[in-house]
C-alpha cells in the first residue's frame, strides 16, 4: 500500500544485485564498447551543442544580480564619495555634469541609468556644486573619452551591460583625462572603473581602483580610502 516508489527502489536494487554473470563474446563487447563510446561522444556533443545554444542565446548583459546595490544607495554613496575627490571642483567648474552611459539595446542598462538619473535629481549638490545629468548610449571608448573632455564631465557613470573589453577600452581612453568614473556593476572596477559598489554579507561596500584613479586625476583622501576595498 505504501509508496510504490519506495518499494520499486528496493526492488531495483535487488535486481541489480542478483543479475546473473554472463560470459560475453569479446568482439561483441568491443563492438558494444565502441558503439557505447560513440553514443557517449554523440550525446556529449549534443549536450555541448545544446549547452552552447542555451548559454550562447543568453543576453550578454550583466545579470540583474550584478547590480547588487539598490540604485538609491549607490547614488547616496556616489554623492558622498564625490565630495572627497579633491580635484572635482576644479574639474567641474561652476556646475558638475554627471554623464550616465548605457549599453545600446540593453533594457537593464537603460533601467539602471534612468533610476540613477532620478535619484541624482533628489540631491541638490555634488561636492557642494549644483549638478546636471546627461545620458548617452555607448558607441566606442574614444568617443566617450572625447565627450568627457569636451563637456567637462565631472562624474562618468557606467550602467550595466558592458563587456570586459568595453570597460577596459573606456579605462584606457580615459587615462590621462580628468573624470571620476563610477559603475553600477562591481566587477567593472577591477577592469578599470575608479569607483564601484558591491554588496557583501548584506551590506554595501565601496570598491576603488586606485591606480586608475591616479590616471584620471581623481584624488581621494586616505581617510575615505580606509572605508573602501582598494583593488589596484
Amino acid at each position, binding site marked *: *500500500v505504501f509508496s510504490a516508489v*519506495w518499494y520499486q527502489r528496493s526492488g531495483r536494487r535487488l535486481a541489480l544485485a542478483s543479475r546473473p554473470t554472463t560470459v560475453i563474446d569479446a568482439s561483441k563487447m568491443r563492438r558494444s564498447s565502441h558503439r557505447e563510446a560513440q553514443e557517449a561522444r554523440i550525446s556529449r556533443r549534443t549536450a555541448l551543442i545544446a549547452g552552447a545554444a542555451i548559454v550562447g542565446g543568453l543576453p*550578454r548583459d550583466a545579470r540583474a544580480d550584478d547590480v547588487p*546595490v539598490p540604485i538609491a*544607495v549607490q547614488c547616496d554613496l556616489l554623492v558622498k564619495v564625490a565630495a572627497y575627490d579633491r580635484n572635482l571642483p576644479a574639474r567641474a567648474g561652476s556646475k558638475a555634469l554627471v554623464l550616465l552611459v548605457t549599453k545600446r539595446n540593453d533594457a537593464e542598462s537603460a*533601467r539602471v541609468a534612468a*533610476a540613477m538619473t532620478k535619484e541624482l535629481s533628489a540631491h541638490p549638490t555634488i561636492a557642494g556644486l549644483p549638478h546636471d545629468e546627461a545620458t548617452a548610449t555607448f558607441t566606442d571608448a574614444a568617443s566617450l573619452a572625447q565627450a568627457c573632455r569636451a563637456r567637462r564631465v565631472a562624474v562618468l557613470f557606467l550602467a550595466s551591460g558592458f563587456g570586459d573589453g568595453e570597460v577596459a577600452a573606456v579605462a584606457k581612453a580615459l587615462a590621462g583625462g580628468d573624470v571620476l568614473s563610477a559603475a553600477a556593476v562591481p566587477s567593472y572596477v577591477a577592469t578599470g572603473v575608479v569607483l564601484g559598489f558591491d554588496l557583501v554579507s*548584506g551590506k*554595501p561596500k565601496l570598491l576603488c581602483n586606485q591606480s586608475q584613479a591616479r590616471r584620471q586625476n581623481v584624488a581621494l583622501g586616505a581617510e*575615505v580610502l580606509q572605508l573602501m576595498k582598494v583593488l589596484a
Partner: protein
Amino acid sequence: LRLRSCLALGLAAIASLPGPALADGLTDLEAVLEEPVLSTATRTAETRAAAPATSTIITAEDLWRFGIRSLDEAINYLSLGMFTQDPLHAVEIGARGVLLSADYGNHVLLLVDGHALNEQWDGTAYFERGAAVPFELIDHIEVIVGPGSVLYGSNAMFGVIHIFTKRAKDYRGAHVVLDVQLPTAFKAGAGAGYEFKLFGVPAEITAQLEYYGQRGPAFTFGPQSYGIDAVTGRPKRFGATGPATGVWGGAPSQTYFSQVPAGYVRFIAGNFEVSLRSAMYRRGNPYVDVTNTFPFGYNDRDSFELDRWLSVDVKHRATLSPIVSLSSRAYGDTYDYQQRAVTYAAEDCLPGQLEGCQRHLIGVSRWLGAEERASFDWTKDGRFETQIGVEGRLRFVGSKDDITDRATGVVAGSLNAYQHYERALAIYGQQTARPLKWLALNAGARFDLDERFGSRISPRAAVVVNPWQSASIKAIYAEAFRAPTAYESFFTDPTIQLAPDHLKPEVTRSVEGIFEQRLGTHRVMAGVFRTFFSDMVSLTSLTDAEIAAAVAAGKLQPGTPFALQYRNVATIDSYGFEAAIDGSALRGRFRYGLNVTGAYVRRRPAPGAPLEQLPVAPSLFGNARISYELGGYLPTLALAGLAASARLADQGVSGAFQPVPYAPPQLQGRLTISGRAPLAKGLSYRLSGEISSSGRNPYVVGPNQAATPQQPSAELVPVVQYRCGLGLLYDLPF
C-alpha cells in the same frame, strides 16, 4: 523609573562612544555603508529602514566573529524577535513569545537562496545543525519576524529566515574548515568558489561539502519509577538487558548523537542559476519523551531519527524593458523521514508482542514546482512598482508505520499507510509606491489554492514614513497561514486516533508599529506588536458520544476508551514590544548590539476553555554583543550573551506536576577570540568558550510525563552548561 533609567543610560552610552562626531561627513558615509540591504521582505533589494518588516541581518563576519556554529546560535545570540529552545534533539523555534512545541519548525519558513527547505509531508525545517546548509558558505542571513505569507505562502507564520550563500567573488579559491566543540562534536568541510567564462558569458560556481558529527555528552537521568506494564502486569522494561524493574534512568552513553553530511552547489551562467542541495540528518535522543518521539528503549543506539533531502532549483531572470522584468523558477525536491524506535515493553506494542517491538515510521514527500514573477517598474526608479506572480506545485506525500515484533522479527503490519498526489496553485501581487520623499506604501496579497485544505488569502499592508532625517516609522498589518500537514491530515490509528474531518489552515494576523532612528553609525529601534493566532491545530480528546459514533462507523476499534483527533480549535493572543540598539565606532573596529523582546501570550486550547500560559516560550528574551578588532595579526575579541525569563515546561499545564515545572531564567555568555594566524598565510582561527547559568530547559523528560503518586514533580531536560570550541579555516586562493 527603571525603564527610564535604562533609556537614559543607553543614550548616555551612545553619546560617550569613542569615534568621530556624528556630524562628521565620513561618518555619514559609514552610516550608509552600515545600513544593511535586504530582499526577503518584498523580494526587492532595499535598505532595512525602508523594508516593511522587523528584520535582522546577520553577516558572515558576525557568524565568525561571535563563534556562531549553527543557525540556532545565530538566532539566539544575534537576532531580534526569534529564539530557539533545545530539548537535546532538534531545537524548537519561536518568535515574539510564541513557540509551539513539537511542530518540527513548521511555523517558520526557512529559505536558502529563495528555495524553501520546509518539506511537504510535515512542513519540517530544522534550525540547528540539522538545517544542513554548509555554514562557511553563508553570506548573510535575513531574519524577518512576523507573518510573511504574502509572498511566500504556507509556513511563514512566525516569520521567514532566509539564508543567502556566497557568490564566487566572495568565496574565491579553495577553503578547508575544521571545527571542534570539545569534547563531543566536530565538523570538517571543504569548499571552493571559481569564476570563469562559459561561451563568452560570465559564469561562476560555488560549492561546499561538510560533515558534522556529535556524540554526547552523557547526562544522568532519573531514576523515575514508572511501575507496571499495563499488558504484562509486570514492572515495565526500559532496556535490552537486566531485569525489568519499572524504573527508568541512568546515564545513557549511546543515544545522544547527530550525524549531518551536507553539500551545496550553486552554478551561475549569465542570467541562469542552478542550485543543488543534498543532505542527511541522523540523530538520537537521550531520553524518553512522548511529545517528540516514541518511547525509545533506554540507551538504545538502534533508536534514531533520519531525514534526507535532495533538491534542485533553476532560476532565470530577464529584463525585457526598463519597465518590465521577469523571474522564472523551477524546482524539485525529494525528502524522506524515518523514525526507528525500539521499545522493550509490551504495552508500547501491538497485542502479542510481549518482548517489545521496533516501530519504523516513514514519511516521504516529493514535489515539483514552477514560479513566474513579473515586475513592472512604472516610473523606472522603483518608486511605483508592481509585482505579479504565479506558482504551481505538484507533490506526493506518503507514510507508513511498520511495527516489528522484537522477539520474532516479523512485521505485524503497516499502520497508517497512505499516499497522496496533490496540486497547489498560488497567485500573488504586490504594489509598492513612494509618492512622496517621506512616504512609502506597500500593499499585497497572495491567494493560495490547495487540494489539501482549500484556499486562503494572505494580505499585507504597510506604511513607512520618514518624519525627519534617518528616522522611519512603520505601521504594518499582515496575515499568514500554515497549511495543515500531511501528517496531521492523514494520520489515523484505530486504537487511539481518528483522522481529521477537514483541517483548515492555521492563521495568524498581526499588527505592528516600529520606530527607527539612525544616529551616524548607530541605530535605535523600538516597536510594539499584537498578534492573534486562530484555527491552531491541536490534538483534541473525543467525547464518549464521538467515540461511540466513530466505533459505529468502523473508524475506531470497539472498546476504545479514549481517542484523539486533530482539530482547528486553539487560539493564541500575543502582544508585546521589541527594541534594538546597535552600531559601530572606530571605523568599524568596535561593534555592539542589543535586542530585547517582551511578550504577553495566552492560549485558549479550545473554544470556551480558560486561557492558559503558553509553555516553553520565554516572555522576555534578549541578547547583547560587543566586539573589538585589535587589527593586523592581533585577534578580534567578541563577547555575546543571551537572557531568557523563566519558561513553563512543555507538560507544565497538562502534567499536573507539583510544583508547576519551570526552567529557571537563563543567562548565557560566549567569549570568542578570532584572527589570522601570523605564521601561516591563509589560516584563520577562532577560540570560544561558553557558559550557561541555567542547568535545565523547559521539557519534561522520562516516561512520567504527568505527575504520579511516586513522582509528583517533573524532571526537566538538562543543559550543556560549559562548552568550548576551536575552529580553523584555511583559505587557499587559486
